[in-house]
Structure formats: structure tokens, C-alpha cells
């Protein structure tokens, strides 16, 4: 146990991403309060946030270099460890944050809720997530998780005057609190088992326990339901559609991608390190949950008419696919998770960005029919939409294909043929509702009062960027696969 109040530069180096984010977050609060609010140029906050992300990018780049050169390195007595896994997820978070910020400016303006706190919260949430991915200590994990969660509660409810937004926030908060209560209850049991809050120690302790020890089971049950909630696995998914619909669209995208990614990071970490020895106990369960999740997500999406809800259900289904990677829990499975999440960032943000930009005289237009005849008004973006949908459906050579590809491979490797067949056939089901979107914007003619795309530079950049990456990853996936690969190798330990 190290001496009190010693905090070295190494520790700082490890913490850099979180620190930078917090600093910029506070910076935004201050500048917003004292400078920006006077000028009324709220987009400056966005610029500041992006600057913060730039710095983070540099830091993460450093980390990547260090990890590549000299492997993982820990700080703060091993309560935070930077390894390929953490770096990868930091990248994911940074990407999603950038996209979210870029999308937000116009959207929040249009909604009349364009305030500095919004961006600050985005950054704080990211800080929490980055620590979720890198932390190795129950307390760190718990507090960072809550930081993320709380920020999201607020972000979801940020449209204060919108009933839907309030409602979504409240539901999210109540259920979130409920779930994190269970989660932390499990944490407490874990602490009771190990007498330490450090994951590795816990892992050892659990492993030392007899097979299927009930204390461990209790911890496993409570923590896993907590996490299932976060990744919106069935039957803990109920919040997702409502929150996704009610929240401001950029936030929806952010929640659906980043928080899910973070929760998966935590989950993988927990299941592989803490419960690694119990894998026989949880794999079948995860398998069932994944199957049910895919089923419910896909089926519910089929008849959905609200775009955001449709995407919400689809994201539930995607969670199921990603979970399958953890079920297989072999190299290709985890690789699949990483690739899947990376691709998911771009395709999902892209889709949401387009949905978010869709407005009919100022009102957000979020129904499927609002897309009708989009091809006539914005052919370019219609093509992008098609790209995103194809990618979500997992049609090669789009980015989304590779994740599924790895997942299937992982399942077949472990001999889960039935699961694989189901997962594969659900691709066809999913294709059906993704093509409903394509059909709406390509094949059906618009109404006399069509919804228009209301975007600014940021939104456009985000859209084009997402499209470009979705296709690029599809055609030239090598680099991305390597990146994902690195994360896996460390996680597998």
C-alpha cells in the first residue's frame, strides 16, 4: 500500500485522458459562463470540446505508442491500467464524442437548448467511460460508471421543455439507479469475497473458491444483471427504446454507441478477469440472453414506424450479436466485439446524424415516412443512408459485415452451430427492416410537405465522415482489424 498523497507523473500519464477531459469540461463551463454566453456564439463551446478531443487524441496516440512499444503500464497502484484494450476503447469513446459534438451544434440550436453544460457533460461522460475501460479497481469502476451514468441522465433530459425528454431522463434514472444499485451490491459481495477491490485480487480469490461457490454466484447474478441493463440486453432492455426516442438525437447516438461500448468493456473485463474461473457457469446464460436479445430486438424492430425507436431496437439486436462474441470468448470472439463496436460507431452515428437532421418546419421529424422521397431532395445523403443501413444489416463490403463475420467465426470455432445459424438467419430478418428505411428514402415518393435535412457544417462533416469510414473499413479493413486485434490480445490475459 503506497504512501498517502504520492502522485507521480506516471500516474498522471496513465490518467491523462480522463484528466484532459475533466479539465476541458470545466474549461467549457467557465468559458461558457464568462465569455461565450456574452458573445452568444455557442458553437465556440463545441470548438473547445473538439479541441479537448484533439488533445485526448494526442494522449491516446501516445498511449498507443507506449503500449505498442513497451506493453501495458499501470498507475495508481494498479487501479488503472493502460493496455491495448483500454487504448482501443478510448479511441472509440473519442470518436463517438467527436461525432456527437459535431452533430450536436445544429441540433441543440434547433431545439433551443444550446448550452455549454451540454458539451461539458459530454466530456465528463467520456472521462467516466475512459476510466471504465481502463480501471482495474471496483471503486474506480463504480464511481466512473456512475459519472458516466449521471452525465447521461442529464444529457438525455437536456431538452427540459420536451415532455418526452423529461420522461426519458426519469425512466433512465430510475432504472439506472436500480440497476447500479444491484451492480454495486454485487461489487460489495465481491469485496466480501476477496477483501480487496482490485480486480486481479478478486479474480484470484474467486478462482480460489470452490466451483460454483454461492457467494460468487450471488455476486455474479447481481453484477451481470447490472451490466445487462447497461448494454440493454433482453429482458433488461426496456429503457432503451424510450430513452433513445426521448433523448436529443446526438445524445441518443452517443448513448447507443459509447455507453454501450463502455459497458461492454467493463463487462468483458469483469467476466474475463473476475469471473474467468466461473466461465462454465455464465457462458450458457450469456448464450441464452444473447439469443433472446437478438430475437426480441430484431422482431420488435420489424414493425417499428419511428426511426429512432427502430434504431433503438436494432441496437438491442446488435447488443445481442456483440454478446455472442463474449459467449464464444475466444480470440476471434473478442476481436469480433472490438471490430463490431468500431464499425458500429460509424454506422450508427451516421444513421442517427441523418435522422437528427431531419426536420419538418422546425419540428424534429422522426417517423419512417418522413424519409419518403428523400432521394429527390438529397441524393447524396440518401446514398449515405443506404450505406449505413447496408452496413447495419451486415452486407459486405460494409464495415458492419466484419464484426458479424468474426462473431460467426468465433461461434463456429466453439461449435455453437445452432447459435450461429440463428444469428445468421436473423441477419435476413434485420435486413428486412433496414431495407424498410432504404425503401422509404429511395423507392417511395415524398409527400407534398416533405421533411428536409437541416444541417450545418458539423453535421455534414459527421455524416460524410461516418459514410467514408463505413465504406473505407469495408474495403480496406486491415488497419482497423489490427487495431481491434491489439485490444483483444491484452483482454484475453
Amino acid at each position, binding site marked *: *500500500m503506497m504512501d498517502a498523497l504520492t*502522485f507521480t507523473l506516471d500516474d498522471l500519464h496513465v490518467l491523462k485522458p480522463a484528466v484532459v477531459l475533466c479539465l476541458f469540461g470545466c474549461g467549457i463551463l467557465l468559458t461558457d459562463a464568462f465569455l461565450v454566453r456574452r458573445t452568444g456564439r455557442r458553437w465556440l463551446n463545441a470548438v473547445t470540446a473538439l479541441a479537448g478531443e484533439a488533445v485526448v487524441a494526442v494522449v491516446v496516440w501516445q498511449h498507443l505508442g507506449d503500449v505498442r512499444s513497451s506493453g501495458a503500464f499501470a498507475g495508481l497502484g494498479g487501479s488503472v491500467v493502460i493496455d491495448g484494450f483500454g487504448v482501443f476503447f478510448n479511441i472509440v469513446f473519442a470518436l463517438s464524442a467527436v461525432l456527437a459534438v459535431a452533430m450536436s451544434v445544429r441540433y441543440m440550436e434547433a431545439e433551443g437548448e444550446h448550452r455549454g*453544460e451540454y458539451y461539458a457533460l459530454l466530456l465528463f461522460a467520456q472521462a467516466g467511460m475512459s476510466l471504465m475501460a481502463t480501471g482495474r*479497481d471496483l471503486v474506480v469502476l463504480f*464511481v466512473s460508471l456512475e459519472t458516466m451514468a449521471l452525465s447521461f441522465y442529464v444529457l438525455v433530459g437536456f431538452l427540459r421543455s420536451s415532455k418526452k425528454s423529461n420522461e426519458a431522463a426519469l425512466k433512465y434514472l430510475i432504472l439506472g439507479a436500480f440497476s447500479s444499485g444491484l451492480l454495486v451490491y454485487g461489487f460489495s459481495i465481491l469485496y466480501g469475497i476477496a477483501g480487496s477491490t482490485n480486480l486481479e485480487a478478486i479474480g484470484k480469490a474467486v478462482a480460489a473458491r470452490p466451483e460454483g461457490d454461492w457467494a460468487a454466484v450471488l455476486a455474479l447474478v447481481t453484477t451481470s444483471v447490472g451490466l445487462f441493463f447497461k448494454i440493454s440486453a433482453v429482458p433488461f432492455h426496456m429503457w432503451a427504446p424510450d430513452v433513445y426516442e426521448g433523448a436529443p438525437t446526438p445524445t441518443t447516438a452517443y448513448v447507443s454507441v459509447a455507453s454501450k461500448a463502455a459497458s461492454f468493456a467493463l463487462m468483458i473485463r469483469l467476466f474475463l478477469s473476475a469471473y474467468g474461473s466461473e466461465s462454465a457457469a455464465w457462458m450458457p446464460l450469456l448464450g441464452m440472453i444473447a439469443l433472446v436479445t437478438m430475437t426480441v430486438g430484431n422482431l420488435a424492430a420489424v414493425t417499428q414506424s419511428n426511426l429512432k425507436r427502430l434504431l433503438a431496437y436494432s441496437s438491442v439486436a446488435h447488443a445481442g450479436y456483440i454478446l455472442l462474441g463474449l459467449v464464444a470468448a475466444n480470440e476471434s470472439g473478442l476481436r469480433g466485439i472490438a471490430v463490431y463496436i468500431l464499425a458500429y460507431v460509424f454506422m450508427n452515428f451516421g444513421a442517427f446524424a441523418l435522422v437528427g437532421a431531419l426536420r419538418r418546419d422546425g419540428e424534429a421529424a422522426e417517423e419512417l415516412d418522413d424519409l419518403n422521397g428523400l432521394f429527390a431532395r438529397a441524393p447524396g445523403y440518401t446514398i449515405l443512408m443506404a450505406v449505413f443501413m447496408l452496413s447495419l444489416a451486415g452486407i459486405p463490403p460494409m464495415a458492419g459485415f466484419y464484426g458479424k463475420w468474426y462473431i460467426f467465426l468465433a461461434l463456429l470455432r466453439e461449435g455453437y452451430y445452432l447459435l450461429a445459424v440463428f444469428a445468421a438467419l436473423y441477419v435476413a430478418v434485420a435486413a428486412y427492416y433496414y431495407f424498410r428505411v432504404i425503401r422509404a428514402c429511395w423507392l417511395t415518393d415524398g409527400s407534398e410537405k416533405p421533411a428536409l435535412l437541416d444541417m450545418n457544417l458539423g453535421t455534414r462533416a459527421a455524416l460524410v465522415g461516418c459514410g467514408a469510414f463505413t465504406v473505407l473499413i469495408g474495403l480496406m479493413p486491415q488497419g482497423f482489424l489490427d487495431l481491434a486485434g491489439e485490444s483483444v490480445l491484452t483482454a484475453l490475459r
Partner: protein
Amino acid sequence: MLIDTAFFYALAALVLGSAVMTITRRNVVYSAVWLISTLLGVAGLFLLLGAEFLAGVQVIVYIGGIMVLFLFVIMLVPLQEESAQRRFSNQKWPALVCAGAVSAMLALIVVRGIGALDHPGSGDPLGPGSLSENSEKVGLVLFSEYLLPFELASILLLVAIIGAIVMSKARNRETES
């Protein structure tokens, strides 16, 4: 020892009893009051477990902070028609059944796990009168091992503050600009 046992059961009864009262009172104010008593009971348990500092925090933060917050909000909510309203939601019976079932399961797990969590020397808490030590130990651990969470907690609270402000502040023309 016997004293402790007696105290434990007494406090346990208090905690559970007032917890039940908390969730059954029609009037929110009563609920709040009962909650306070629950929290006090828990604080007592902390003392019993030799966590004086924690007990202090419990009393100050919770009863001093959170409950006040609650009471503030309760003031905002018109109580008169509130008290006229139904107390429980339509799903109370299925909910109770499920809760019962789940509790049975959890209880089963816990019972099967009896002893699993008992460590040698468990039950004999750090002796009384060691308050200063306790807070010192807590302080040391808090500022060494848990430095990061501690810092992070500040961010957490900052988020909470922002959230509370953003949410509870009425929209005024100023925000539109």
C-alpha cells in the same frame, strides 16, 4: 458480545421496520421521516461494526444533505391532492409476487452461501473507542489507494450539480439567445 447481538437485532428491526414504513406511507413526508429513521438505524449498524467515521458521514451527508433535498422537493409538490391519490401502482400484486419469488431465490443463495463470507475473526469488530484510529485509517486509505476515485467523485458531484441546476432551472429568455 451479547450486547452487540442485542443491539444488532434491535437495529436490524429498526432498519427494516422503518424501511417498510418508508415505502408504505401515503404521505411522502412521513415516508421521508421514516427513511431518516432507517438511515439512523444503518448508522447505528455502522457504529456496531466499528465504522465510526462512516456512521458520521451517514448522519451528516444523508440526514443532513440528502433528506433536506428530499424535503425541499416535497415542498414543491402539492401534497393535498397527493394524499388523496392511490398509493400503489396497478402492478403491486404481480410486483409483490415477483419480489417475493426473487427474494426467495436470493435468500436461498445467501443461505446456501452461509459461512462462505465469514472470515476468521469475523464478528469481532475493531474495538470501540478506536474512533480516531478508524478515521485515520479511513483517511489514509482514502487519500492513498482511493485517491483517484476520490478525485473522480468530485467530478461526479460536479456533474450532479450541473445536472441539478440545468434540470431544475426554469427556461428563461436568456437561454434562448
